[in-house]
């Protein structure tokens, strides 16, 4: 990858000005994260001080009003919901983008893209609302109680799908035409071209999309709160209700005081730690080939 980075010797004052102002801007962007982390830690500190971090994983249950702070079931809840939805949304999203570029007649491709863009902006409360009055009763017919991990996964899938679909769409738009012509010249059929030529070319973009959607899946709050049942337990089937870390914060923050409130900030820290783990593992996976 060619970049203009090593051109340090240039004596072009506009360039230097530009570079330094860009650095300033990027520093602001980077600082926000630091501020948020510092803020979370400061708020969580009191409870960490007199309860200790360990008890957040070893206590028998989550009943902060009675001094019990086990976060593990919610950690699993978040993980299950995230994994399930990413597993469904990623292929669907990528296939959607492929549909737009290589399968759909142009009459269909444009409105389809518009539709996906639209869905990126439907408020999570609307998804949650829809899930609560349409999806949950449907699931309750199959296997009560209805609000469940399954409902959460399905709603999350719908919510994160636009992210991956739009990222994949943008990446596919950037595939050089000569690749496609080259493949066509070799007589490769459509899917073979997509699998063999297009996908390798857009790997970086797809990967970014997956990271973004995973982040969104972990962070989603309102909709998941409305359809997941919010029972603090490790689910044994997908029909069991679960509570995620985000729902935990949103549900209890409004009325929490003292240690309870601080414990919710610990949930926030755990979430952040999950995101960091995601980012680090993404870096580890992509090292040496993504940006090489």
């Amino acid at each position, binding site marked *: *990858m*060619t*970049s*203009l*980075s*090593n*051109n340090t*010797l*240039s*004596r*072009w004052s*506009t360039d230097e000005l530009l570079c330094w102002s860009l650095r300033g801007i990027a520093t602001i962007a980077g600082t926000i994260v630091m501020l948020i982390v510092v803020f979370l830690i400061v708020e969580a500190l009191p409870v960490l001080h007199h309860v200790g971090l360990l008890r957040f994983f070893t206590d028998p249950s989550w009943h902060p009003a009675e001094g019990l702070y086990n976060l593990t079931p919610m950690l699993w809840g978040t993980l299950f919901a995230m994994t399930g939805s990413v597993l469904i949304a990623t292929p669907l999203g990528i296939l959607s983008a492929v549909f737009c570029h290589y399968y759909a007649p142009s009459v269909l491709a444009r409105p389809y893209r518009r539709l996906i863009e639209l869905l990126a902006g439907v408020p999570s409360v609307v998804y949650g609302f829809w899930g609560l009055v349409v999806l949950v009763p449907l699931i309750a017919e199959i296997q009560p109680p209805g609000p469940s991990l399954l409902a959460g996964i399905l709603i999350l899938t719908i919510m994160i799908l636009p992210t991956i679909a739009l990222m994949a769409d943008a990446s596919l738009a950037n595939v050089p035409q000569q690749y496609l012509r080259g493949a066509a010249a070799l007589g490769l059929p459509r899917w073979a071209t997509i699998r063999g030529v297009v996908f390798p070319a857009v790997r970086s973009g797809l990967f970014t999309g997956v990271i973004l959607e995973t982040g969104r899946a972990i962070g989603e709050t309102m909709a998941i709160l409305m359809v997941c049942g919010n029972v603090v337990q490790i689910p044994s089937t997908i029909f069991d209700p679960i509570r995620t870390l985000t729902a935990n914060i949103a549900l209890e923050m409004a009325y929490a005081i003292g240690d309870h409130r601080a414990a919710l900030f610990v949930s926030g820290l755990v979430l952040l730690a999950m995101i960091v783990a995601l980012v680090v593992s993404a870096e580890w996976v992509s090292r040496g080939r993504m940006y090489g």
Partner: protein
Amino acid sequence: MTPVESLTGPHSRHPLEERPACRAPQPIVEIDRLSLYYGDKPAFQDVTLSINKGCMTALVGPSGCGKTSFLTCLNRLTDLIAGCRVSGQITINALDVLAPGINVIQLRRRIGMIFQKPNPFPLTIRRNLEFPLREHGIRDREQITQIIETTLRAVGLWDEVKDRLGSPALALSGGQQQRLCIARALALLPEVLLMDEPCSALDPLSSGVVEDLIVGLRGRYTILIVTHNLAQARRIADYAALFWVQNGAGRLIEAGTAKQIFENPRDPLTAAYVSGMRG
């Protein structure tokens, strides 16, 4: 942005004349023990060569022997490649090219480069020529219009495109695009032109037109041309230099007049390469 005086000067007269002819050898580019590494991997090592003013020097040799990398050192395009390291010395008209403090922008203005694949910007034909000129301080509309016409005439494109200067450059044919790129370089009145296999990506017909154009430039510009086409090198070059891969790195095997290299090579490698290609 400072206006470039050397640009405004000659253009006010006739732009493409009064250029030094290749007569008495008068070095303009001096290259001394130049090496280039990508990371730890050497692209070429220890190249010492001088290029004569107003002459056309052809760089020949098999693929991967560092000819293109060599060209990019001369206008410091190597700065753009991460992990790329250059050592040695290059002097162009008494200017130390590799010195840390030089104005790279000015250097590149003085050294034009034509790439293997035509690479006009995704702009209109006019904007492709106008935009670099404006950047280098020429703002006068009439002057710009005049330069556009003279350079397009110089590359023989004027009659083909004069009625559609406002249409996208990418709509031109490959050969036309390449001539537009040459015109774009010429508009900046470079002292040296670097050409990286300028004909190899073109069809034979376009290739012929571009080659004729390059021959026409001979004697008026100092030209360094990388080519695989030995026949072409022999036809158009005054001097030739052969690069070859030895011990995993490109090296300069032999340099001399084109006549000497092609007809009376001293090095056995050169002899083999020249005759092999010929036979």
